[in-house]
């Protein structure tokens, strides 16, 4: 056995580590140093694992001539058993006898094993009970040795993984078909493969005292604004909750305005989109166990953008963008405008159209607002039913339900044809929106618009829009004005808002998102401050 240089003897009692953030603290586990004897370690560990029957405790001996007693501990089904057998057990049990025998009382034994015997990548030495318990439940393989107060924590996790597929909610005609999956490391690797910048920073932390969910924050060191990075990091580390199950939960803990109906961070499952966001100075937050990632800070206009806009011709991309804004306006407004016009300002309807509308309306026993509200509720239920039924069945329910119920509603004089057109047109407009978040918001915002129009006609409708705009303007995302570049107006960013200008003209990064390096294309001088 090769000699390894000895380190200076460690003091008998290791200094207490500095207090960790709340999300990194362990629940009810004494933070004490591990004893040297294996039995002592097992005794300490027993209360914390005895009720977990999925924890495997595998005793074995290292070497054969002067064997050292050891234990391997892991959660069943979490580690890669092939790697465990081939790269850990086999070298320890069989090859350890080559050369000199391991000395059971050598305090450097764990170091020796890690450096010379184990053929796996990530190995960490731990000497405190809290870390030991935490690592077992984090899915690490633990090797405990007789005669050493240190244990080895080895990362050979491998669970069932979903195949990389195109995210159904963000389908595009061109561009990458890849979507994030539920595994954090694979998601990070997808970003790394697209962004090979050595300045790309990946910072990992843990959220949730009980779930101990891994969260990664990814940004480019010399592009992202350090204040924003710091703020996001502070907010993520300040989350003091027993657990989070998905990125959507973390998003709600770090947002600026919890009461708002609007999403304040962009969510995406597409690595190509995430990479473009990072290049604009944003921070990508990936939560283990969720394919949906968060990019922050975000702007309202981003919810109308899709990666395909940049892959298509400028004119096509711009046209589609304008369509989306129009769809958002119509999704919220069509029903309300119909009520306002029919109830308050019928003179706005051309006479040729007014007569048939009035004739059919006359056959419906409800006021127009009630008629529209019934149709809206029916439409929302059909949409929800479609979402929760499997694939083709859901589509069929949507189409058949819509047609049959619409036809039946007219025949039963439950609704007029104009009202059905209005309600279905509003619903259809929501499907044009590329972000599921803004589509959901538009479905809900329609209701207060309808009520305002029912009470005060077009005036109520206009005032509700004023309230909506004021609310949007007052919002921030990690301190960045949410309505930028519209308000405050950043003229240079307007080329990538309602329209998508030529890529060759986008020489600078958007000023609406603070960044350090403002130049995106070479040969461009940056003048003036943002």
């Amino acid at each position, binding site marked *: 056995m090769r000699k390894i240089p000895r380190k200076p003897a460690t003091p008998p009692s290791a200094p207490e580590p500095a207090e960790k953030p709340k999300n990194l603290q362990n629940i009810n586990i004494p933070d004490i140093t591990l004893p040297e004897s294996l039995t002592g370690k097992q005794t300490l560990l027993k209360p914390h694992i005895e009720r977990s029957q999925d924890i495997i405790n595998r005793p074995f001996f290292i070497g054969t001539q002067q064997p050292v007693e050891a234990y391997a501990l892991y959660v069943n089904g979490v580690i890669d058993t092939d790697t465990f057998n081939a790269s850990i057990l086999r070298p320890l049990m069989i090859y350890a006898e080559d050369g000199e025998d391991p000395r059971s009382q050598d305090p450097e034994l764990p170091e020796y094993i890690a450096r010379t015997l184990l053929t796996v990548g990530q190995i960490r030495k731990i000497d405190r009970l809290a870390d030991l318990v935490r690592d077992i439940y984090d899915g690490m393989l633990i090797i405990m040795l007789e005669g050493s107060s240190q244990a080895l924590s080895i990362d050979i996790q491998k669970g069932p993984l979903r195949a990389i597929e195109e995210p159904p909610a963000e389908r595009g005609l061109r561009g990458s078909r890849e979507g994030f999956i539920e595994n954090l490391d694979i998601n990070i690797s997808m970003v790394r493969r697209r962004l090979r910048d050595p300045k790309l920073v990946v910072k990992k932390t843990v959220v949730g005292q009980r779930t101990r969910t891994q969260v990664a924050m990814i940004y480019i060191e010399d592009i992202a604004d350090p204040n924003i990075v710091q703020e996001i990091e502070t907010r993520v580390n300040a989350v003091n909750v027993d657990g989070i199950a998905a990125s959507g939960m973390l998003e709600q803990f770090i947002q600026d305005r919890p009461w708002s109906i609007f999403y304040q961070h962009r969510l995406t499952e597409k690595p190509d989109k995430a990479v473009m966001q990072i290049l604009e100075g944003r921070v990508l937050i990936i939560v283990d166990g969720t394919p949906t990632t968060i990019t922050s800070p975000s702007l309202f206009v981003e919810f109308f953008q899709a990666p395909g806009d940049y892959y298509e011709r400028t004119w096509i991309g711009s046209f589609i963008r304008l369509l989306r804004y129009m769809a958002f306006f119509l999704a919220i407004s069509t029903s309300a405008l119909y009520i306002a016009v029919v109830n308050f300002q019928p003179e*706005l309807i051309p006479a040729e159209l007014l007569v048939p509308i009035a004739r059919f309306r006359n056959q419906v026993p409800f006021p127009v607002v009630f008629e529209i509200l019934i149709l809206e509720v029916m439409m929302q239920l059909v949409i929800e039913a479609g979402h929760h039924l499997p694939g083709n069945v859901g589509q069929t329910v949507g189409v058949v339900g819509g047609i049959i119920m619409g036809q039946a509603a007219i025949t039963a004089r439950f609704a007029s044809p104009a009202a059905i057109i209005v309600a279905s047109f509003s619903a259809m407009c929501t499907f044009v929106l590329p972000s599921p978040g803004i589509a959901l918001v538009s479905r809900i915002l329609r209701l207060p618009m309808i009520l305002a129009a029912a009470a*005060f*006609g077009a*005036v109520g409708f*206009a005032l509700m829009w004023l309230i909506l705009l004021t609310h949007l*303007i007052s919002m921030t995302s990690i301190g960045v004005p949410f*309505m930028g570049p519209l308000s405050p*107006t950043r003229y240079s960013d307007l080329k990538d808002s309602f329209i998508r200008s030529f890529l060759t003209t986008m020489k600078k990064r958007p000023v609406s998102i603070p960044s350090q390096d403002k130049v995106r294309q070479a040969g461009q001088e940056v003048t003036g401050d943002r």
Partner: protein
Amino acid sequence: MTSKQLGFLIMGTLVGVNFLTIPRTASEAAGQDAWIAVLVGALLPLLVLVLIERLGRRFPEMDFIQMSQYLFGKIGGSVLVIILSLHMIIVVAREIARFAFLESIFLLPLTPIWAISLLILLVSLYVAGQGAQVVARINELLFYLLLPAFFLIVYPLITAADHTYLLPVGGSGILSIARSSFDVSLYYGRMEFLMVAYFMVTHKDEVLKAGLIAWGAVTVPYMLFTAACLMVFGPENLQEQITPVLAMFTSVSYPLLERMDMLFLVAWSVAFRPVFNLLCMSGYSLTRLLNLQERRHYLMLLTVAGTAAYLFSLIPTSIVELIIYSGWQGYTHPVVGLGYPLLYLLAAKMREGRTQNV
């Protein structure tokens, strides 16, 4: 707020309901020269702007309340702040009443005035409650959103305008133009809000430039719309229209949309910017005067100011009464707009002289 945002705030505060009626007032005495009267009348807010800017330069580190108390003592300064706040509350009341009556006449004939006024007040309180920066930003956004409405003027100009109605230029006489100019200048009131808003701007050296641009952006459309109404109706017929700008849209048939006046008015119904702008300024002044720091105190005082304005707005019971009250109230603009900065400048000079003597 930035100087650019202040510019939008000035535009939003100066343009209110009076935009719809100014051609009639301007042509009352000046006839075909109403558009000249609109230009000349705009000199009053310009003067107010320049005076307040000169005053602000002397005290760049202070806000309105600190400056008032510095120049006139704690009690005197506080009284002046309260008077200006009250003045702004009364202007808010007038604007609420004007909007309510206008919307009652054209859009909500069956809805009682008090309900329309209350609706306007509640929305204004929500907007003003978000703070000065959001108020400035919503003014900026509304400017761009309402801008297309101004281009609606092109169609009546092409189809129904007769430029000979403007002739002979200057024919109504200097005295008539001067009298109309004074009447019009009252329409441009409210620039005195700058006494409070000036000190919220970060780059004060840019205030004059931003103010001049905003002043131009208000004056030119006023003049264009006045000229357009004159060319469509002529000076005599113009006097018979309560809201000539709306009548101009009714007088021509637009392709596809026949009732363009309605659409214009719907768009205009979000334009009660003076209400929330001035509410914000008065709420801010009172909060600072009472040396309160928290947002809830600002919201509380804002609600008090808004409620007072709402109650005042209910005083006129008919459009005739409203016009009479508005006429009287209009005279306070030159008094406050010119009086305040002149008084403050005089006090600053005297204090300067006293300091030098010492």
